[in-house]
């Protein structure tokens, strides 16, 4: 089997250190303060962000890294893209070692991040920013022009191409980041939570483009981190579930869901979901796991998913708990297991807490 990415016992630790007040305005004296804090840094404790990860991603595969915030997904991506040097272990990208041949690795990869409006110049328009990156990646002018027009169309920024990033919405800026990623077509493409901050329609369009064009037509190997289970299920050929720096399971979405096929899942839509209610349901006999997802912070309305071996027996007790805690049941259904259920089974907690 030909692999695009191979990860061998990769571990990355960080020092837990007080943030250096770089923006506090110490002026010329800042470096003296920074030096002092650096001495503290040496004594600081280690935090293990990625813990002994082994992984193989096939060429042309669309691979998902699923896990909650802080699971180590981004750190793993940064190690694979040469932005971080692992403490132990190594990895190869397209056959090149990330530690020994970082320059060759950089020629094979592309990365799209999320959040902020990282990487863009406030003084350049959307189009000028994309032109800058096209030049930076060595695209010939004719190809750059063609690609820029194409990606602006895909991300829906054609009408806003002459605006500067500060004059468009944060969702549009995220689309700019994605457009920048789509400009470059390398064998391996890392996408770190690309659809965070996008409206549902844009997110769907982006997912379709990733699946059909980048993965299907161009044959890029794509590693996509997400904490949206539906995104992972919809897009990925295989998914690795990460928690506390470790990969706790890896397989196709179907294989992962088969891990919990003996369980029943009850899905209850209600209001007034709170910690007390979830704790109370969790203590009911035969309840294996319980997770909640709040859709409306004002009324605390959302969904509770209860894992059990005997739905019929526990359902009355669960409904009584909800009533006791001021909830109002809107809908009850037996649900198919999702990747979130798999995550809950493996880690004892929900993806979105």
């Amino acid at each position: 089997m030909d692999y695009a990415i191979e990860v061998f016992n990769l571990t990355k630790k960080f020092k837990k250190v007080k943030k250096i007040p770089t923006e506090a305005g110490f002026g010329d004296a800042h470096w003296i303060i920074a030096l002092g804090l650096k001495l503290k840094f040496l004594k600081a404790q280690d935090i293990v962000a990625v813990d002994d990860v082994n992984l193989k991603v096939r060429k042309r595969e669309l691979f998902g890294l699923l896990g909650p915030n802080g699971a180590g997904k981004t750190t793993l991506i940064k190690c694979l893209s040469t932005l971080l040097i692992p403490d132990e272990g190594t990895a190869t990208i397209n056959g090149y070692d990330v530690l020994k041949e970082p320059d060759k690795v950089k020629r094979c990869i592309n990365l799209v991040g999320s959040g902020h409006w990282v990487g863009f110049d406030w003084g350049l328009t959307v189009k000028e920013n994309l032109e800058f990156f096209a030049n930076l990646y060595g695209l010939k002018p004719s190809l750059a022009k063609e690609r820029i027009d194409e990606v602006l169309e895909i991300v829906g920024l054609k009408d806003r191409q002459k605006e500067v990033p500060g004059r468009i919405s944060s969702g549009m800026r995220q689309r700019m980041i994605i457009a920048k990623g789509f400009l470059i077509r390398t064998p391996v493409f890392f996408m770190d939570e690309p659809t965070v901050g996008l409206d549902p329609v844009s997110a769907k369009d982006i997912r379709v483009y990733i699946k059909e064009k980048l993965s299907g037509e161009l044959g890029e190997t794509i590693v996509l981190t997400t904490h949206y289970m539906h995104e992972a299920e919809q897009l990925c050929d295989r998914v690795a579930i990460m928690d506390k720096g470790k990969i706790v399971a890896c397989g196709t979405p179907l294989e992962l869901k088969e891990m919990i096929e003996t369980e029943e899942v009850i899905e209850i839509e209600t209001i007034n979901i709170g910690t007390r209610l979830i704790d109370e349901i969790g203590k009911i006999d035969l309840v294996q796991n319980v997770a909640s997802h709040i859709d409306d912070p004002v009324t605390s309305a959302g969904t509770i998913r209860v894992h059990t071996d005997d739905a019929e027996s526990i359902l009355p007790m669960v409904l009584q708990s909800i009533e006791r805690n001021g909830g109002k049941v809107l809908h009850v259904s037996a649900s198919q297991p999702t990747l979130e259920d798999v995550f809950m089974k493996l880690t004892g907690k929900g993806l979105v807490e």
Partner: protein
Amino acid sequence: MTEELRMDRKATLRAMWAFVKRDLKIWTYFKLNFLIELAGIFSNLAIYAIIALVAGEAVKSFLKPYGGEYVSYVILGIILNTILSTSLAAPYWGTMEAFWSGRLEILMISPISTPLFVTGTSIGGYVRTFINVLIYLALGLLFFGLRLGGTADYALAGFYILIAAVACTGLGLMGASLIYFIDARGGQDPIRWIVGILVGLASGVYYPLSILPEWVQWLGCLIPHTYALDAARRAILGGDFKNLTIPVHRLFGLTPLLTDILMLIAFSVVTVPLGWWMYDRGVRKAKTDGRLSRWV
């Protein structure tokens, strides 16, 4: 189809041009920028023209090796210092700007090499400095009595300035590496801070070195600016080529210009490889500590 990216010579030039274009666009984004800079340069020159009126005669005898006239001496000093300050500061500010704008990781992951990244992020500073130097010269000649020597050897002066700029780039790289080593991200690094003090006090930008106590003059010998200022002024202002003005001149017993160039080459040979080595180690350290990004 996908393929590995190739950065051949044309692609590299395109990448460099992209940096220049970007910096010029950002510089001209605020239309008043140019006028503000122009006013700053004008007032700076005016201050030294007034000082020349007050104290020019008093220092005249000390300026004999440089043509004997204070206004030209100090304006040329400011211009040369502007160029060398850019070399000194550009690697630091290029890296800092990339860091604070969240662009450092994005540039580091691109197929351009680290030297190309540093050059690219610094190049805008040089373009601006070039424009500023032209403004200094124009205003100096038109309004403030800057007089360039009739026998000025600009090629010789340019050669000295170039070697000094290379040496200062080495120092600048050493300073920029401290962004990674000690998180010197507050607008100043220790190396540039120390060099800045020595430049102001003992390099001869604003007054001739010979008016200072001997031990302070020796401090001036520790930075490349002193030698570049000495040689370039002699070449441009039509001074003499024999007068020994820096303690190191007396130490070696060679002609001043020969000593100056030897010292500048020595600085370059030491600072440039050391600067690149430190910068590279600094990037490795940041990649180990996870501090290439503002955000985790």
